[in-house]
């Protein structure tokens, strides 16, 4: 069991695992979070934030950094620590500015805008209007009613795992089985959502 514990401190190794070794990613996420969690205290002292707010800013920092590393947006022009610290400071300032708004919204729009940017302007306008009509809270509720297997499949895919990796992780026979099940889950979610929306 001890062999499962890898204590990563080296930037390059951490980056490699986030990008390539999805099986060890969860551990790396935890490791990264723990490694610089003293930032929370700094946020409390420097910006006079409540612990809860400093924690939110730090968690968002780690989540965003992980995405940036996975998407090669982090170009290693500075150390990971410096990079995280910069993002953390920005998040703290954002939090102070948005103090009166819902904290969930700090991250909410990122994945949507990423996909929207792939569509050309004319079609984008049509989709944008339709998205605005969607009830996100209801959609979230339906996602949680899907059943654990479906939910897991969809969340793993949303986390960047491909079907082969999901098959390995969740012990499905093949990647094709994962793909079929996953798409079926998505249809099921759509059905549930549409039914309740009417």
């Amino acid at each position, binding site marked *: 069991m001890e062999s499962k514990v890898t204590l990563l401190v080296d930037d390059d190794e951490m980056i490699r695992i986030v990008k390539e070794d999805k099986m060890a990613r969860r551990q790396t*996420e*935890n490791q990264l979070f723990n490694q610089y969690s003293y930032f929370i205290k700094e946020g409390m002292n420097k910006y006079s934030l409540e612990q809860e707010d400093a924690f939110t800013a730090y968690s968002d920092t780690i989540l965003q950094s992980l995405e940036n590393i996975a998407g090669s947006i982090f170009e290693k022009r500075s150390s990971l620590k410096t990079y995280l610290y910069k993002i953390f400071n920005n998040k703290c300032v954002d939090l102070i500015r948005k103090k009166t708004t819902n904290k969930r919204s700090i991250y909410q729009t990122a994945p949507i805008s990423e996909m929207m940017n792939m569509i050309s302007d004319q079609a984008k306008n049509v989709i944008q209007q*339709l*998205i605005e009509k969607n009830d996100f809270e209801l959609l979230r509720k339906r996602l949680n009613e899907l059943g654990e297997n479906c939910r897991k499949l969809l969340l793993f895919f949303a*986390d960047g795992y491909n079907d082969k990796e999901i098959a390995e992780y969740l012990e499905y026979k093949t990647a094709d089985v994962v793909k079929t099940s996953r798409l079926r889950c998505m249809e099921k979610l759509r059905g549930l959502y549409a039914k309740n929306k009417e």
Partner: protein
Amino acid sequence: MEYIESYFKGNNTVEQKLQFENKILNDAGFADEVAFYISANGVMKQELYEEKKRRFREMYESHKVVAMQPRVRSLWKYMAAASVVIASFLLTWFISGNSSSPHQLADKYIQQNFKTLNVKMGSGDSLQAAINLFNSGKPDEALSVFEKFVNRDALNSEAIKYAGIVSLRLNNYDKAIKYFSLLAADSSLYSNSGKFYKAITFLERNREGDKEAAKQLLQEVVDKDLEGKNEAEKWLKKF
């Protein structure tokens, strides 16, 4: 849905892309499906972030970083805490007649501290359920739940610690040593009781060589100012 997914994976040719976007403009049902796909992905990502945040919070609180509060604290709190510690120590000292062996001290420590597990805020529902199982006299069932957590996430230090404590309470010393070694190896913890607990387990097991191993660990706890330092200092005097 597969067609939409393929588009957002970025695998399409320019021509296929144009076709896809034309379909959005000319087929309202299809456009609705695309909007749903994007919205659902946004919701899933958000759920994912929330889940990860919950995991981070559990780790953060279990690592006792929760103790981080504004620096200005009243001295009386420390004095009160110190008085309680001194009073308990004096009481223990008088009761034990100041003649306890290291083994007896370890035994007493286990009785006093590991009889029940404290339910800590942020431990997570399932961990709390396992703690409740232990506290209601079902240590075997509790251990099996803690072990599931450890198998799922070898860095879940809170589950590792509890698995060690419950193993110790079940007199499964070898298993307890294994878990406390794992805990002690986690350098990311702010406060790590792994070495101290391992020393207690050695003293409790009391096989040949165990006392020396415990002494060495207690010395390390004192030298490196690890959790359990106060007890370790006292216990070392008994060797």
